């Protein structure tokens, strides 16, 4: 059995009065692309800096490959970081920037030369070695930073919002590039971002952080389709939240009373449900489909209040009494959906997620 690449347990970090991290625990497997996702100020960058040893936690443990690293100074951690502002040394050319870590590891000069050449070719910067960072474009600088981290042959690489300084087009390219570089190696990446699209599209697994608490962890599809709480539901995409009451529980199936009638839903595992409990029924707009459910679905009737064309999709606003709901359907030239229409809609039971009511998500 292979060891865990990173194991983090009960990390607490306070800055004066502010609690940046409030008992965060997770583990990262070797070679995994792991995301820390959360809004700005949630503590995710602090977590990354603690992994790098640039901040010291008030309590809790961090171990790499099964070994506690608390006593290792930041320069002995061996977890190179891709800084948000790149931190390319302006007085060193590309070659010296990339070779920096190898020099510190006392690698012979000839070998450094070969390894730097190799990594520059891999990130697509062949022949740029003599340039100074100031002479490179944003995307090229990003590649140098990646090369600088990868060249020391680490088992862990830390990335702090690596794409935030790039424009939209370049961001998509670099996202793919980082995915490719990760697949070519067996390095565990810990990637911090506030952009849920970046996380959902790249991550092997991800952790959602809110206010210093870890509020969700798992595979992207799992977290998106079965959010464990309201924060994850809202933060990972758009969500319709319906006030509901639990009427009965049969194994995985949870029966709830909604303003649209009695529904059956499911939930993220590890939670217990009480009959009569006030909960929320969460449905993603894209799972709301026109027509009556074929067999085991949740059907309802609603008034079409508004229809907006968003190109590939139609954004439909529905209302039944005091309850409103959004649906996203694929757009066609001849659409049967018109404003003012009273129509049938449905959601499958797998896409109906029951989540707890509380405003502040509890820490996992």
């Amino acid at each position: 059995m292979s060891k865990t690449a990173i194991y983090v347990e009960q990390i607490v970090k306070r800055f004066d009065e502010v609690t940046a991290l409030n008992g965060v625990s997770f583990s990262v497997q070797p070679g995994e692309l792991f995301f820390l996702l959360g809004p700005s100020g949630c503590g995710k960058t602090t977590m990354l800096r603690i992994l790098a040893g640039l901040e010291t936690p008030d309590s809790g443990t961090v171990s790499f490959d099964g070994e506690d690293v608390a006593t290792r100074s930041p320069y002995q951690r061996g977890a190179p970081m891709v800084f948000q502002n790149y931190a390319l040394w302006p007085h060193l050319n590309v070659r010296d920037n990339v070779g920096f870590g190898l020099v510190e590891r006392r690698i012979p000069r000839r070998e450094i030369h070969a390894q730097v050449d190799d990594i520059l070719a891999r990130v697509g910067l062949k022949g740029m070695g003599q340039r100074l960072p100031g002479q490179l474009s944003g995307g090229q600088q990003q590649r140098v930073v990646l090369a600088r981290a990868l060249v020391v042959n680490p088992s862990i690489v830390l990335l702090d919002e690596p794409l935030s300084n790039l424009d939209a087009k370049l961001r998509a390219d670099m996202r793919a590039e980082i995915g490719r570089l990760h697949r070519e190696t067996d390095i565990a990446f810990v990637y911090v971002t506030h952009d849920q699209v970046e996380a959902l599209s790249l991550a092997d697994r991800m952790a959602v952080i809110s206010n210093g608490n870890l509020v969700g962890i798992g595979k992207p599809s799992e977290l998106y389709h079965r959010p464990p709480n309201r924060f994850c539901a809202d933060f990972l995409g758009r969500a319709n939240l319906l006030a509901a009451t639990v009427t009965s529980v049969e194994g995985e199936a949870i029966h709830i009373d909604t303003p649209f009638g009695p529904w059956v839903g499911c939930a993220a595992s590890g939670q217990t449900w009480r009959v009569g409990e006030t909960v929320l029924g969460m449905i993603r707009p894209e799972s709301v489909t026109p027509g009556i459910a074929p067999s085991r679905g949740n059907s309802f009737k609603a008034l079409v209040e508004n229809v907006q064309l968003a190109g590939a999709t139609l954004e439909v606003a529905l209302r039944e009494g005091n309850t409103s709901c959004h649906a996203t359907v694929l757009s066609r030239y001849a659409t049967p959906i018109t404003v003012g229409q009273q129509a049938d809609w449905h959601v499958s039971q797998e896409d109906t997620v029951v989540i707890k009511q509380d405003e502040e998500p509890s820490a996992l």
Partner: protein
Amino acid sequence: MSRKSTSMAPHLILWSILAFLAVFLGWPLLYVFRGACIDADGFSLTYMKALVTDPIQLQALGNSLTIAVLVTTTCLLISLPMAWFMARRMFPLKAIFSGLLLVPLILPPFVGAVGLKTLFARAGPLSALLMNIGLADGPVDWLGRFPMLGIVILESMHLFPILYLNMVASFANIDPSLEDAAANLGASPWRAFRRVTLPLAMPGIFAGATLVFIWAFTELGTPLVFGLRRVLPVMIYDSVSEVGTNPMGYARVVLVLLISAFGFWISKRLTRRSRHMATLGRLTVGRQETPLRGLPLLAVYSFLGAVLAMALLPHISVLMIALSRRWFLSVLPQGWTLEFFGRAIGSDLTQRAMTNSLFLALTACVIDVVVGFCIAWLCVRKKLVGSDWLDTVAMLPIAVPGLVIAFGYLGCFSAHFPGSWLDPRTNPMALLAVSYAVRRLPYMVRAAHAGLQQTSITYEEAATNLGASPLRVIRRITLPLLTANLLAGAVLCFAFSMLEVSDSLILAQSEQFYPITKAIYTLMEGLENGVNVAAALGTWAMALLGAGMLWAACLLGKRMGAMFRAG
């Protein structure tokens, strides 16, 4: 284990620097206070009281204050309009003028005094000129009739660049949209300047004016050359010989120190509110420099021309004295020669003085670079308990006149280490180097401080993250990134140390240890054509210093002004 050893080192550096400053700054100051207030019978304020009651002492204090006030006022009158149009108006040759305005700083006023004294002398060129055109019917004894005239002119012309640099920096930092807003609400340009710009620039103006006031108040060389002996600095210089026996010297030093500190305290108090304005004054839009044309341009050129001519007059006259064979009752010298330049670097006295000065300035420079960088690094990067303290203490020499430090050294080190290498009477070299270093330390700290603040800490974090130990980070990343700042600070330290006056005059008491400045002073007093040789030596030093300042200005660019900021 390793964590412990890496976090011990900064503390060790912090405390050794504090110890260094305690011995070479704190102790001498305390010693001076003790000397002024404690005699054989214990604590007594008799000597301090004598300074403000005895008519002779009172006259010295009055003269010193008069000089300082006149010099500060003159500097304000020159600098304010100049700084305003240099910051807000565009005109041809502006860059050259802003460079030339720094030139006065490169010559210690007491060397210029040699020149001006000749110019104003009874039988000097000014008298000759006035007699030639019929405005005077005999030689006029300018310096006899207006003893302070030369001193005030010289010191003003030497010190106005400090105030000017502070003001330009202040004006440049004010958001132009604030003035636009004033105009938009109906303020004329003049009213907008008075009601918006000037109040916002006040902190910089006060800071510069305080420095000028203190420098003028404690200037020793100029009154000494002009023979005005009844001013505090000269009276302190005269009490050097009886430092161990007469407490009056200490009392005078304490008085100087108290007045300097009071000046700083006032300036800080008056600008206290400005801390909250700092966030408002940031530039939000690009500045438009209005081009000047026609009559206003002519006015600016004549103003700049007149000030520069005045400011460079002492330098030019020094050069002319060095070149002249004979200059007696004529407008221009009667005959030219290069002989004195040869003699200025040919004699035993001057050669030794040059070697001494070079050695001292280099040593002081090295001490400053090392200590200054460490202080800035501790304050900006480490933020240890006590580093705020360190910053304050290291900046103290700006407010403590050189005269005070030199006098304190002489008193405490000759009393406690008689005959050793720390006794200035036996060998002043060590203390001279240290006193030069301590006095220039603020400039170095400031240069390194600015550099570190402009350099993102992530450069160092990235290096640490890739496996560089703290020492390796400093060597491979921090120092290379700070080269320009450290070099500029070092050049300034070196240049100022080369032509340091008060420490040199007070501490160096035997000829073999004379630095250049004391050699110039001695030459002037002495032998045949001494003034010419002194002027030639001054010219050599001027050239050296000018080259150094130019180099520093190139390295620092617009940040040059920040070097002379107080507080």
